[in-house]
């Protein structure tokens, strides 16, 4: 399957990946944060991106979002080479990113945050706050109908509400590619379920979604394919149906495909996994 995709694009347009990142490299001061990575994403697909801390997941996604320029490599959107040097470039290509930090201006209200950097103005360049509030109310109606706080600074909102504002930004501008960096890390169970439903809904609408998560269950629940990163490289990209969570965990920890790992390593891992299961809240 994967080998097929790397061949020349087939005539059918639905075979052309929505996003293809080739040979992407980013290094900070001699450390290769991202080291020659290939990854792609199709419309209506969720690709889970997993790996330990410092594996390069977030850096790779920042390259796509324009927040971190790549040292080298190529990005193709719909098969066409794209230059992404700034967040503005990425947004112009309908790539939206929901950062783990949410990237909200805490002192501003929800509408100002949804439209941050893309404010609506009228004919003479005056901000059209009413139009922005109205659009924000519409998008929130869909994402989080209980959201009522359109006038307060977002610093005073709950974690889930803040998350809604950050997601609302991506949804309002009709993203085609959505990057979600740990979207449920700061949320309670009810809000997590809400975000999961939303991801399924957006996928059904044909968005391509990169999902970064530490939560292997989230990833298995939501993804179609899973890419595992280790020390700046992709270990493997696998179809969810063809692997077990334990296989993925093994790749995350060992940085090798299961068939490449020695039996000692796998046995050691088994012990660690058992221990982790006891620690993890159900």
């Amino acid at each position, binding site marked *: 399957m994967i080998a097929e995709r790397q061949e020349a694009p087939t005539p059918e347009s639905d075979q052309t990946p929505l996003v293809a990142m080739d040979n992407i490299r980013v290094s900070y001061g001699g450390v290769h944060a991202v080291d020659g990575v290939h990854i792609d994403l199709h419309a209506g697909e969720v690709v889970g991106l997993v790996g330990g801390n410092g594996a390069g997941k977030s850096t790779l996604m920042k390259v796509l*979002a324009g*927040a971190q320029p790549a040292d080298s490599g190529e990005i193709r959107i719909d098969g066409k080479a794209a230059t992404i040097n*700034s*967040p*503005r470039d990425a*947004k112009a290509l309908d790539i939206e*990113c929901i*950062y783990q*930090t*949410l*990237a*909200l*201006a*805490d*002192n*501003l209200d929800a509408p*100002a945050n949804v439209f*941050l*950097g*893309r*404010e609506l*103005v009228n004919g003479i*360049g*005056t*901000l059209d*706050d*009413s*139009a922005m*509030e*109205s659009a924000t109310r519409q998008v929130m109606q869909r994402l989080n109908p209980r959201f009522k706080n359109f006038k307060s600074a977002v610093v*005073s909102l709950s974690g889930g509400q803040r998350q809604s504002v950050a997601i609302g930004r991506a949804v309002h501008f009709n993203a085609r590619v959505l990057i979600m960096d740990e979207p449920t890390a700061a949320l309670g169970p009810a809000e997590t379920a809400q975000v999961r439903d939303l991801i399924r809904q957006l996928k059904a609408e044909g968005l391509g979604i990169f999902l970064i998560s530490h939560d292997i269950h989230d990833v298995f629940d939501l993804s179609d394919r899973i890419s595992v990163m280790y020390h700046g490289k992709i270990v493997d990209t696998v179809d969810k149906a063809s692997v077990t969570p334990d296989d993925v965990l093994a790749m995350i920890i060992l940085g090798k495909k299961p068939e490449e790992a020695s039996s000692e390593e796998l046995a050691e891992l088994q012990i660690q996994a058992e221990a982790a299961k006891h620690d993890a809240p159900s």
Partner: protein
Amino acid sequence: MSEVSTPARLSTLDRLRAGLGRASEAAGAVIRTADIDTRLLGLLGALAIIWVGFNIASGGDFLTPRNLWNLSVQSASIAIMATGMVLVIVSRNIDLSVGALLGFLGYTMAMLQITWIPETLGLGLEQPFTWIATLLVGLILGALLGGLQGFVTAYGGVPSFIVTLGGLLIWRGLIFSYADGQTLAPMDSTFRLLGGGPQGSLGEWPSWIVGIIACVAIVLSLYMSRRRKRKYGFTQRPMWAEIALAVLLCGAVLAGVWVTNSYPWPEALAARYAAEHGITPPPGGLNIPTGIAIPVLIMIVVTVVMTYIATRRRFGRNVFAFGGNPEAARLGGINTRRTLMWVFGLMGLLCGISAAIQTARLNAAVTGLGVQNELDVISAAVIGGTSFAGGIGSIPGAVLGAVVMQSLRSGMLLLRVDSPTQDIVVGIVLVTAVGLDSLLRRRRG
């Protein structure tokens, strides 16, 4: 203390307390439903206390048309710069150079009208274009030098504290390259009108016209905001609150005009005017109402324009977003460096306006021009509710802050408090105001 009276007194006290609680709750509800900025209201309250307090302490000398008119003129130059300082501090920066830049720009404008235009260009003194040419050069140079400091801060990565500290020394030093520290005087007679004074004021009818235009603008803007809200089906202020607000604001404007018109020209000046225009003065002298001083009119226009820029323009929104979270602003696609450079450019432009007002008012450029103004400007912004943490600040608040500071100084002057003691009091008020503000903010969450 008898056993019987204690519970009775307690219950009276309780009833009083409950009544006060209800009253304050009701007031709170009114403020909430009327959608009024409470911080601004607090500042107005503080100002009212200061004014009434000084009036009582001075035996009625503070709340006179003459004193209030002077207060308005004295506040103008600091208030104008404070509107720019709000944006500088909101963007997590500081500008220590405003006083020195004001001095340098003041000297440049003085050189232009006293030496360069009349002698170097050989065009002579008192040309009709002198004032506007001088003013434009001052404003443009101010914007460029401010923008230069912004450029070094934003693109060079040097903290604004350092850049503007350097600027303070450089601009102050450059004054001496012009005139070896000599005073330049007198200024062009038209230019001098920018400084206020009886002649540099609008007079009776123009002042009323300005007041009426302001009232129309207030009512129109309230109406437009209401119509916008109705269009989108948002909750509107109740009609009574809308009308009350309009009446209150227009009343304040017209009262202000009335006060400035109640201050007549000084007798000697009025007599000279009468003689020049061949008017026989009536017994008791000619009564010429002064009206709104030109620098005060400039201050009002600057306040309105800067409030519009800060709250209703993309640029202002971006400055506040950057102050709230620089990384979020960058990730949101805002060109944060260019925005910062503009903030400092705007600050420099406002220094140019204030420089014109101060040199015109003094009718001279002196080496002490603008000394310590940076401290007054920063204090005004901070008393007006601008937070050093960034992202929070209000332009009308800063203007009120400037008026509060000037009121304290002029009130203490009336009470013959010496200047070092004035500094001590202003210092204490500054720290207390910011302390109270942060306490209230923490309590509100």
